[in-house]
């Protein structure tokens, strides 16, 4: 329990027969920035709603700051600031008035609230727009105002649901820097959900990949890529034709070549698909593979090194279906 601000145990949420969140186990430690990464409809928002007690889990338990949001939502909401996806403000009120309303809902006195609001508006860079109606704010300004609003209650945890949606790239960069700075300066725990990998990569200490209601993997980015690809960070594809007829040690030439390749230090597995060998390696051994193949007497006509960056992770999980995740990686 110590050091964990958020603990989810076997959390499940069902809508009729549809399971939005399936047996989720997750721990978020104090002071870290955790990114919940997943495609649309993966159950990120549902999880967040359950954290705040805005919807009840079907089974499993949620603990936020040692409190149960199902039975004690008010105390949880005092400690947790939540910026909903696509946040809205009363368009006919100014930014200052909107924040004042929130501050008053948090039982602040007018004086405290006004000081706090001025401070926060400056921090998010909206001092000049304080007296403007929020109907005239741009998307990025609204998000920053939302962040200021979240901070009014002096939260221990802030939860941001898709905070960068609809902001232009420079705005996103600024916004993310702002989050990091706030987290570091105030020791805040931040949970933020996104479907954009690059943003998550930039700011998060740890990442959880969330697809179809299940947490496929969690960890920092290095461990994550190691986990997801069973230790192989590269895949090298080698196209081979015209196997040599000399020493195959009584085996079929292709089998024999695969055997040799497997012996190379760093190679983890070799698969053959027609004339293409798919070689998974933990380090870059392209040149050794090329030499080995050529020395074996076979004709090498194609060599391609695939590197697993985050994009690969992304596509492999979010677009190529989830079969990888299900079969190999969930339990790790």
């Amino acid at each position, binding site marked *: 329990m110590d050091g964990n601000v958020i603990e989810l145990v076997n959390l499940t949420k069902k809508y009729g027969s549809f399971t939005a969140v399936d047996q989720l186990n997750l721990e978020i430690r104090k002071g870290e920035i955790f990114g919940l990464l997943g495609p649309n409809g993966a159950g990120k928002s549902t999880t967040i709603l359950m954290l705040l007690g805005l919807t009840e889990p079907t089974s499993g338990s949620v603990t936020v700051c040692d409190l149960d949001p199902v039975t004690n939502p008010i105390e949880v909401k*005092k400690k947790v600031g939540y910026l909903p996806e696509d946040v809205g403000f009363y368009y006919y009120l100014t930014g200052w008035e909107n924040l*004042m*309303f*929130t501050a008053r*809902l948090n039982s602040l006195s007018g004086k405290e*609230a006004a000081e706090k609001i001025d401070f926060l508006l400056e921090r998010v860079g909206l001092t000049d727009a*304080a007296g403007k109606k929020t109907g005239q704010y741009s998307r990025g300004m609204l998000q920053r105002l939302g962040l200021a609003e979240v901070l009014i209650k002096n939260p221990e945890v802030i939860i941001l649901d898709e905070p960068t949606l609809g902001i232009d790239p420079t705005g996103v960069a600024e916004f993310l820097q702002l989050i990091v700075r706030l987290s570091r300066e105030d020791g805040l725990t931040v949970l933020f959900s996104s479907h954009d990998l690059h943003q998550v990569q930039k700011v998060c200490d740890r990442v959880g990949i969330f697809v179809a209601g299940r947490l496929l993997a969690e960890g920092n980015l290095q461990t994550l890529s190691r986990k997801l690809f069973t230790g192989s960070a590269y895949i090298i594809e080698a196209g081979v034709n015209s196997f040599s007829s000399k020493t195959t040690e009584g085996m079929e030439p292709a089998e024999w070549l695969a055997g040799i390749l497997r012996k190379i230090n760093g190679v983890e597995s070799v698969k053959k698909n027609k004339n293409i060998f798919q070689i998974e390696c933990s380090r870059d051994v392209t040149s050794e593979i090329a030499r080995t193949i050529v020395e074996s007497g076979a004709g090498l006509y194609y060599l391609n090194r695939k590197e697993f960056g985050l994009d690969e992770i992304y596509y492999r999980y979010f677009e190529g279906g989830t079969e990888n995740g299900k079969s190999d990686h969930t339990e790790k």
Partner: protein
Amino acid sequence: MENQTTRKNNSSDFSTGKIKHFFSLFKGPGFYRTDNRVYHPFSVIVQKEIADYVRSWRFIILLVIISLTCLGSMYTALANIKDAIKPGDPKGSFVFLKLFTVTDGTLPSFVVFLGFLGPLLGISLGFDAVNSEQNRGTLSRILSQPIHRDYILNAKFFASLTVISVMFFALGFLVMGFGLASIGIPPTPGEFLRIVVFIIISIIYVAFWLNLSILFSVRFRQPATAALSGIAIWLFFAVFYSMIVDLISKGIAPAGLVSENQIINFENLRLNLLRFSPSQLFSDATTTLLMPNVRSLGPLSMAQVYGTIPGPLSLGQSLMLIWPQLTGLIAGTIICFVISYVSFMRKEIRSR
């Protein structure tokens, strides 16, 4: 920015207090003031809702419509009141109450107008109470603040009820004031009490429609759908319901020579059918209140009437007479509120 600085000045300087305080009312609800006071979150929401209502175009338009009808009906009442008073009337003939009920047929009386426009007022104040918050994306933001979820619904109901009450009392008292000034006969305490009770009943009546439309606003995502559903029900009861009851009663009307009892039973059945409509309950209640001579809301047999001395009922007796109507209206209001309360508490609040 300007607003903000003036607000700050307001708070810091207490010596020039009162006048500035009065003017600051126009700048918005009290919780904008930067003094040391802490408001209960419920009162904060109520303040904001009232401010929103009072500043909205919708409310201003409704206020103008209702004030105009009020003026119009008062004008006809004043023009015709001398015909309504018969020379031989006894002292307690409730001249003052006639201000609200007398008409020459060109314009309906104040009571009829209110029975017609009250639902519109209620529906238009409530139809977007919850769904517009959700569509604006403010609902999930507010609900993530440390407040109970029902605060939102209760505060909205309470705020609109406050607005309606203030408006009705103001209008009612204005009519009384103008009437007093022009006919020169002051109301008796009994008449005054009857008018106050009448205003309270009107507020309950509007509260029923308000709750109905809040229910629709919880149920339907689109404010337009909610508004239309409310208006459909209002029109149904205002126009079609009495026609349907007429059709039914024609079908089951006793034919030929039947006993008095049968006729009375039939007539009671017809009236009771009509009383499923809230507007019928309202008009029953207000007629009885404002015309103290009304002794019964149903048919009376000869035996019941025989030997009675025609005379006004006391306020207590009039209230006894309309007690079922009153409880019916209040029950309808509560039922609508409970349904919307339950469905709102169970609703999952997604952002937009």
